[in-house]
């Protein structure tokens, strides 16, 4: 036996060996791919990537393109509304189901069901539901309310809210399930203590239970935000970006530029901007959340 302390590098060898494939994949595919994309966003690549430098030309063109600006605006509207509403709806549903109701499993499954459908199916379903010819509007008109009009997908000003409805329908169930798991993790004695203290239920939720559910909220936030930023298939299936360009989103712009308009450089520039936006949000948060962890233990 050696009396020296063994090198830290060679401890837990099998675990480290097992992790190597994933580390390599992460490095090459994610980090490498990202770097490659950023580099080529400064080139004049068309159908194929070519290293012909054009400096910031692609970015200037991007930010002077109306379609990109509309995409960003749509993402902000959709994102903010989705974030707020999906949390509110999901939490309220979870709080209601947490009241020891009957048929809890059935109701939970029904509400979670939309999440099991792909965005393409969701988009198509809601395209039909919102279609004036055979959706809600036609049903209510058939009941006799002739002047009733509800066709968000055919009005460029509010079309993005039609997409929002579909997004909420699909996403609320997941948030509800996560929140329900969080609520179930709260010690029942805390509820009892709050009742003895005379604190009304809504105050108990806001000041005691929700702060206790912080880890669940963060997990849910990450899932919801990544879902918002990468939204693509729902738009393609439900509106195709229309009417006009009123429901365009950044991810669709990237795809269209790269594979439809044969303008890889422009697509790379747009995706780099998306990465930058996400990084601007995530990095400060990560520093706040994990930065001091060594000091706090």
């Amino acid at each position, binding site marked *: 036996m050696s009396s020296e302390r063994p090198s830290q590098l060679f401890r837990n060898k099998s675990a480290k060996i097992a992790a190597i494939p994933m580390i390599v994949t992460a490095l090459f595919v994610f980090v490498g791919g990202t770097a490659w994309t950023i580099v080529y966003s400064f080139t004049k690549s068309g159908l194929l990537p070519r290293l012909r430098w054009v400096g910031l030309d692609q970015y200037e063109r991007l930010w002077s393109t109306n379609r990109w600006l509309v995409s960003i605006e749509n993402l902000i509207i959709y994102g903010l509304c989705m974030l707020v509403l999906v949390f509110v709806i999901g939490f309220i549903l979870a709080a209601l189901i947490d009241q020891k109701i009957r048929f809890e499993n059935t109701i939970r499954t029904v509400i979670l069901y939309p999440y099991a459908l792909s965005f393409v199916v969701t988009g198509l379903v809601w395209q039909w539901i919102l279609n004036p010819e055979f959706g809600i509007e036609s049903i209510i008109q058939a009941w006799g309310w002739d002047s009733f009009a509800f066709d968000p997908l055919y009005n460029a000003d509010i079309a993005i809210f039609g997409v929002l409805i579909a997004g909420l329908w699909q996403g609320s169930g997941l948030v509800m399930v996560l929140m329900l798991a969080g609520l179930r993790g709260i*010690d029942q004695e805390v509820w009892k*203590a709050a*009742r*003895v*203290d*005379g604190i009304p239920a809504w105050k108990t939720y806001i000041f*005691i239970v929700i702060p206790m559910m912080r880890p669940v909220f963060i997990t849910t936030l990450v899932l919801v935000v990544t879902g918002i930023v990468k939204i693509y298939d729902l738009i393609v299936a439900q509106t195709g970006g229309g009417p006009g360009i009123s429901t365009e989103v950044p991810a669709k712009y990237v795809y269209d530029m790269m594979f439809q308009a044969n303008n890889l450089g422009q697509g790379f520039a747009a995706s780099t901007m998306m990465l930058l936006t996400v990084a601007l949000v995530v990095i400060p948060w990560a520093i706040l959340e994990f930065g001091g962890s060594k000091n706090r233990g």
Partner: protein
Amino acid sequence: MNNSVEIKNLDLEFGAVKVLQNLNLEIGKGEFLVLLGSSGCGKSTLLNCIAGLLDVTAGQIHIKGNNVTWAEPSERGIGMVFQSYALYPQMTVEGNLSFGLKNAKLPKDEIAARIKRAAEILQIEPLLKRKPAALSGGQRQRVAIGRALVRDVDVFLFDEPLSNLDAKLRADLRVEIKRLHQNLQNTMIYVTHDQIEAMTLADRIAIMRGGKIMQLGSPDEIYGRPINKYVAGFIGSPSMNFLEGHLTGDTFEVGDVSIPMAGYDFANGGAANGAATLGIRPEHVVTGELVGNAPFQADVTVDLIEPMGSDTVVDCQFAGARFRLRMDGQARVTVGDTIRLGLDPSRASLFDKDTELRL
């Protein structure tokens, strides 16, 4: 009206399951009552009913002369301490103590005064600005007691408050709760499954089983004159020795041994006949020089020894059954020794074999 809490004909059912059945209990002002029983006996359920956290099926609960059967927990004039402390983790200790008071819209200086008093009593003043995560288990439970204290109520309910603590802390906090009761003279109802806590803290103990109170009495009564075989076996550690035999007049016969019961205080005044169980606590079996004074004596062989420092528990065979007796820790015994033991019938308990009630 001198009773602080009165429970009248209380029933509680969950569907077809009867958890509490026709339960009556009167708790005097300033009394420390312990509800003791093994898990599932309904003791915590009863406490939750008193607190108003469970709706009763039938019966009434009166606190300080008011019928509070259907009142909200916060309106009953109670404070409650829970096993898991149930502190609000995102608030400081001060926030935990003040949250309920702020919510009740008490004036700020009143809140501050109450927190100051509670913090002094419980010696948690240095902790007021900390969060529960930065406190030890004992400190957390003090804060939880403080949260009941600031409510300025007459009745304190404790739901197994020490069960999450390690043995040493439990003993320390037990003494503090007793001191707290001596100083405040509030009514306290305390649920536990730990007989040591029950014996040391209680003015009266209610032993519960199957949703009923088996025996209600002072720790002395419960220990010395258990009303039935269950209570006798439940209280005391190591538990009581039971000898199955036959009672004829003043003599208890078990196997080929007959033990004279002269001096035993029969519950119904006179001696009884029939199949019976004799219960003798291991600590009431005498050995050594004292044996000479005992009305009944026998020789036994030592099978097993459990030294505990202050005393030694000895296992042996007596009258065809396993028999345990407690000796002084200084006594020198080894396995295989023959020792002479003495029994005093006046300290024993006799139970009917069928009804298991005290004779």
